[in-house]
């Protein structure tokens, strides 16, 4: 019975396209609305969240105008999701096999019980888990295996799109690499479109076709991966790249961006990056910059681009 709090515009003016087989990286510091964006796509925002405007077009249909039942059909069958922190995303009291099978049964991917079991085994094998372990519980898996199981689960119904929400956080470096490689292999093999949420630019450079850089709930910059890495237009992207250790330039100094990203409940009136921007101007504090298009496939929101 808590009375309404203050509505915070977690996301504003976000727009991107994901083509078949494309890997789109979504980058930004923690708290910039990446996960909220992913959940919004599947309409999974918690009770305190609401989508106020916009559309999510999937194969010509606006997902936001679907009924809850129609939406449930789309989930997992067309768009599946790999959550960050597989430990919490898996139900501790059910076996891995059951949790994967559940999705298969739900979307009638295969009918027969026996076939479901086979499919589960096949999926686990595909991600490199001994299929016999499908009768075990999440707590009996190691962290990396849980993440593999999550991936297997996401692929259960052969979705067109997989949303991978920081799939490697909380894993140690060796395992991270394995998981990423597995993802890359499967993406290629199955021709998946992947929305890849991360704050690791190295991963982005390696895996993604295009990149969406988010800051404070808005699009900072959106372009193909080469443009982002070679000709970033937004000061935030530039700063991010400077803060990213480039192994090819071992002498380069590591720079961290001063300050913290804004709290969504206390957003600055003008450009959201203004308080931390090295190129900040007077108008940045008053006026929200519109999205500029330096080139047809390149979007960036910064007053500097005006002219």
């Amino acid at each position, binding site marked *: 019975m808590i009375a309404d709090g203050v509505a915070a515009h977690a996301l504003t003016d976000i727009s991107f396209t994901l083509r078949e087989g494309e890997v789109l990286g979504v980058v930004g510091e923690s708290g910039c609305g990446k996960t909220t964006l992913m959940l919004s796509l599947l309409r999974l925002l918690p009770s305190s969240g609401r989508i106020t405007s916009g559309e999510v077009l999937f194969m010509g249909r606006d997902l936001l105008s679907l009924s809850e039942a129609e939406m449930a059909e789309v989930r997992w069958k067309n768009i599946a*999701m790999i959550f960050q922190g597989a430990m919490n*995303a898996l139900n*501790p*009291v059910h076996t891995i096999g059951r949790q994967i099978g*559940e999705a298969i049964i739900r979307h009638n991917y295969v009918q027969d019980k026996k076939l479901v079991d086979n499919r589960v085994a096949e999926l686990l094998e595909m991600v490199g888990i001994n299929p016999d372990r499908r009768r075990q*519980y999440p707590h009996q898996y190691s962290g990396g295996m849980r993440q593999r199981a999550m991936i297997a*689960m996401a692929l259960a119904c052969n979705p067109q799109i997989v949303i991978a929400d920081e799939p490697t956080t909380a894993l140690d470096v060796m395992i991270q690499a394995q998981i990423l490689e597995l993802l890359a292999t499967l993406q290629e093999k199955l021709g998946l479109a992947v929305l890849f949420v991360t704050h690791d630019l190295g991963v982005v450079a390696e895996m993604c076709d295009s990149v969406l850089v988010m800051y404070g709930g808005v699009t900072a910059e959106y372009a193909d991966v080469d443009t982002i890495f070679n000709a970033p237009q937004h000061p935030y992207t530039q700063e991010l790249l400077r803060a990213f250790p480039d192994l090819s330039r071992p002498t380069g100094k590591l720079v961290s961006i001063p300050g913290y990203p804004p709290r969504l409940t206390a957003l600055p009136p003008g450009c959201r990056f203004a308080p931390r921007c090295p190129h900040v101007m007077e108008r940045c504090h008053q006026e929200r910059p519109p999205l500029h298009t330096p080139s047809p496939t390149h979007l960036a929101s910064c007053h500097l681009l005006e002219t």
Partner: protein
Amino acid sequence: MRYFRIVLRKLAWAVFTVVFVICLNFFLFRVLPGDPARAGIRDPRLTRQAIEAIQVRFGLDKPVINCVESLNPFTPGDCLINPLQTQFFIYVSNLLRGELGISYHSNRPVATILREQLWNTILLIGVAQVLAIVLGMTLGIAAAWKARTPIDYLALLGSLMAWSLPTFWLGIILLFWGSTSLGLPTAGKSTPGANYATLWQQWADLGRHLILPTLTYTIVFLGEYMLIMRSAVLDVLSEDYILTAKAKGLSTFQILKDHALQNAMLPMVTIIALNLGFTVAGAIQIESVFSWPGLGKAIFDAVGRRDYPVLQGAFLLIAVAVILANLIADLFYSYLDPRVQTE
């Protein structure tokens, strides 16, 4: 194997607790003032010789335990006596033979009295608890699912109200309402002297007698279960795996059934078992209002008459039942939560 070890450890703990309760039970009732032989009886016909005879009969002439003659007033005694000749030993050895002493009031073996009453109480508590748990859980799930909606507020307020009602007070009000407007019986568990043509009639008669006490009971306990379930489900519903389930396209009902319920049951199981003790306190009030011939009524009568052997027996029985229930709950818990079995 690990699981077996867990079970064994829990079992050992339960046994230890039972032993502790037996000792406490013995000494607690020896600390009481006055002459137990005259408890509740102020009968002019009782002579001093008769009192002594009663004391011999109940074994009260012997020292409490080695070194202690009596506890109230505290008198030290001979330490070198044969321990077999102490009240404590007699009590324990009787207990091992399933004897709980003889009621001061009715002169019958306490074990027999309790055995008769126990089943009636189990029937009443059983039916009412199942109803309260099922309804409470259902309401709790509904309220948690529909959190912050009128359904939630209504269920919450109703449950808090139910929880706030003094049990006996609700009982007497329902008794008058039920007997006046529904013509339901006001006492007992069957119509005495009735000849039932069919077994069905007998069950119907029992059912009619059960309605009011069960209703009272259910209302009083419903609220608590609802509150606990609501809170447990709310906790579960904010877990990530619920989000996973939802992302998988499962319907709300499926999510509640397959993912929320079992996890939310975990705290419920513990509470239900621990609640057994309070359940008996409720039984005392309800059974005495509705003259239901159960354990609670026996305790109520025994309290009024200071019939300590019956109280002592009931105390032990309830304590052991609660310990047992907790043991079962622990084991059931590990069945519900695979993490306990294997980690």
